[in-house]
């Protein structure tokens, strides 16, 4: 079975170099490998001193590279879906002449790159696909939506298709809305099914793992934690973290030696977040990684850890369960009932202190104002009960504000009705 490894991290932390180094290591061992970039700021071409692009290019024995452009994929590989999206927005000549103009959720475009990667995986040409990706946490969380909408797809669509047939002529005449046609409805169902299958593939622990690349700097550490939280929450396997730009013990000058001290707490924080994930430290190279030779050097010097492409050992992850007015977080912890455990929450961080170690779990936004209400220690499980906070003054203000606007809207309702009536009259009279 083929393997997919996704490298993710902010631009400038060195994820492309690391993905490339892994690809070179993989190909050197005689495994047919594809290195594919979905980052809009591609730099695979630079790394291998060649022109890379939408067409697959062979750069060494067993190694091909490819740079994906989600918009191009949408238009060329999913032309029907592109038209459907256009139709969903409404039919006017503009959207038909500019097939790229849809209103999409941020991160949604990347899903098209991932759909393409699934296609490449299923083609069976490659034994390993290494993906150089922009931060994926939010994008992968969007893959939850198709699953949530499944019930509606099953129930609404059969009805919807019948209704479209009956209502389409009426709605066009009367309201000038073109409903998507029967074929388009089929295509929406198909996109839905493809996205569900994509989620399954990327969550399959036997096939796909995610490797995070970061550097020990405040902002990057925060973003890495967030990304990791999403990946965990939505059930993707993170199997390694690369901490890049670690300053050497002696840099030869005091200024940088002092910055070595500044790096320390961030390294420690990353270690407390990734307690269960192996961390590889990468020294700060005094020059740029550019060109085949420096990629090979990186592969030789850094990727010497055992089991480079092995699957990670199975690990139970934390899960959240919905309870009245709150959530229960269950953390697998062997022997939890015998331990002295201290738990502290600071906004979006949860700190767990045992006698000999400290672990930090980044929490989802929804728990930002939640309070820890209870701690349950069972044999192999630590459960934390979060209660959502009573409304704060600020939030009360907002509720009042929302209520006020609602009343204003109520007041304007009659006016609006009259306006709509006029609008309709205008339509019937053919004035618009």
């Amino acid at each position: 079975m083929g393997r997919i490894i996704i490298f993710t991290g902010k631009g400038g932390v060195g994820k492309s170099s690391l993905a490339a180094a892994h690809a070179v290591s993989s190909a050197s061992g005689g495994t047919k490998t594809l290195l594919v970039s979905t980052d809009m700021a591609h730099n695979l071409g630079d790394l291998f001193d060649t022109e890379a692009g939408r067409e697959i290019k062979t750069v060494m024995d067993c190694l091909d590279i490819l740079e994906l452009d989600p918009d191009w994929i949408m238009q060329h590989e999913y032309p029907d879906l592109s038209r459907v999206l256009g139709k969903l927005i409404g039919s006017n000549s503009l959207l038909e002449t500019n097939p790229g103009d849809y209103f999409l959720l941020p991160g949604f475009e990347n899903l098209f790159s991932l759909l393409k990667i699934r296609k490449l995986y299923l083609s069976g040409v490659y034994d390993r696909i290494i993906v150089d990706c922009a931060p994926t946490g939010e994008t992968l969380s969007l893959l939850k939506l198709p699953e949530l909408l499944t019930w509606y797809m099953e129930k609404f669509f059969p009805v919807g298709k019948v209704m479209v047939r009956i209502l389409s002529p009426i709605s066009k005449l009367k309201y000038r809305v073109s409903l998507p046609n029967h074929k388009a409805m089929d295509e929406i169902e198909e996109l839905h099914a493809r996205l569900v299958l994509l989620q399954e593939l990327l969550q399959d622990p036997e096939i796909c793992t995610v490797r995070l690349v970061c550097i020990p700097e405040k902002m990057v550490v925060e973003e890495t934690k967030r990304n990791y939280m999403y990946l965990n929450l939505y059930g993707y396997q993170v199997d390694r973290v690369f901490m890049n730009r670690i300053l050497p013990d002696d840099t030869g000058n005091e200024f940088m030696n002092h910055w070595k001290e500044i790096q320390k707490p961030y390294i420690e924080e990353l270690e407390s977040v990734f307690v269960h994930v192996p961390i590889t430290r990468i020294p700060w190279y005094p020059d740029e990684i550019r060109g085949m030779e420096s990629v090979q050097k990186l592969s030789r010097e850094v990727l010497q850890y055992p089991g480079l492409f092995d699957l990670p050992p199975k690990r139970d992850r934390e899960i959240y369960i919905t309870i009245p007015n709150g959530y229960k977080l269950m953390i697998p912890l062997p022997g939890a009932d015998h331990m002295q455990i201290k738990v502290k929450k600071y906004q979006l961080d949860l700190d767990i202190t045992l006698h000999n170690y400290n672990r930090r779990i980044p929490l989802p936004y929804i728990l930002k104002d939640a309070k820890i209400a209870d701690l349950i220690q069972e044999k192999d499980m630590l459960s934390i009960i979060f209660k959502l906070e009573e409304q704060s003054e600020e939030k009360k203000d907002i509720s009042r504000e929302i209520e006020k606007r609602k009343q204003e809207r109520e007041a304007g309702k009659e006016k609006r009705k009259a306006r709509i009536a006029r609008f309709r009259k205008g339509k019937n009279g053919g004035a618009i």
Partner: protein
Amino acid sequence: MRIIIYTGKGGVGKTSIAAATALFLGNKGKKVLVMSTDQAHSLSDSFDVTLDSSPREISENLWALEIDPVVESAKAWGQLRDYLKQIIRQKANGGLEADEVLLFPGLDELFSLLKILEAIESGKYDVIVVDCAPTGETLSLLRYPERLSVLADKLLPSVRNFTSAFGGIISRKTTVPKPRDEVFAEFDNLVKRLSRLREILVDRNICSMRIVMTPERIVYEEARKNYTWIRAFDYAVDAVYLNKIYPQEALKGYFEGWSKLQEDIIRRIRDSFGECKIFTLTLQKEEVRGMSMLATVGNQLYSSEDPAQIFSRDHAFHMEDEGASRYLILDLPYVEEKDISVSKEGEILYLTIKNEMRCFSLPDEISRRELSGWSYVDGKLKIIFDYE
């Protein structure tokens, strides 16, 4: 009234620069509000004070706040979101993951910007300094007001009419609840506020965008792309900041090789940002934190300049006549010809570059003409209009 928005990718130090600028202006007697859309509380860390989503006076003439995107997004589209939640929750028990994904993490950033509008409407401040979310996200969100108004103008009236006519049937047949009128009204209101916000942000006499970067190749390339796009959306960029330049003493020994790389990048940056003012700041001995450190940084940056001034008014586009043809010329560096597409419908000109679109409302003297072609030469896009 001045709005200064700092943008740049995570880790370049834009929060420190925003904070130092705000403090400097406050000390000079201007009433300043500094706000951050960043989730990591970097503004509180910078000032070393606790902040929340209401303005707090942290030194003379200086107020600061941290935007809570969850709160802002509830204010902006709580009802519409609740409607979506209602649809999904009814049948799918997705637990916390579902609740979290329905916060639509990306959109929150957009609604956070509405806080700027609130601050303007309060009329309390001379200068508003904004520390904005990282580059990529900011970029993709800046285009939404335009797209949303397409939705509000073209789609919403149809959907509203459609649901009022057929909503009953749909509800009966499928148990999909029909959206209430408030949901539409809220959306309408949201679009209005976003459009108002955009109007202010594109006014180059009020608002300037400033890009913060570090002297590294990837950061520089992203900044350059960012620069093109911000201007193509008609926002004014009047200055760039080159932060964390390694001082000579830091490059002795192990990092000697870095010195040439850094010089090379700095040279390229100086040539890449048109008429923008370029501010430089060396890497400090410590992380920039606390009032006294921020004051030091502010004095280093602005020894001779008032940071509230408008450093450049350069326009990304202008008009020219040649024979009977009229040209609209856009300064659009660093894009590829094959990625450009242009179309016109009525008075709106649509420009798409790769997967980003923007609309220009054309003035009368052009809109009555037909689009007859375009060319892209030397970083300038020339769009040609003729009478038939």
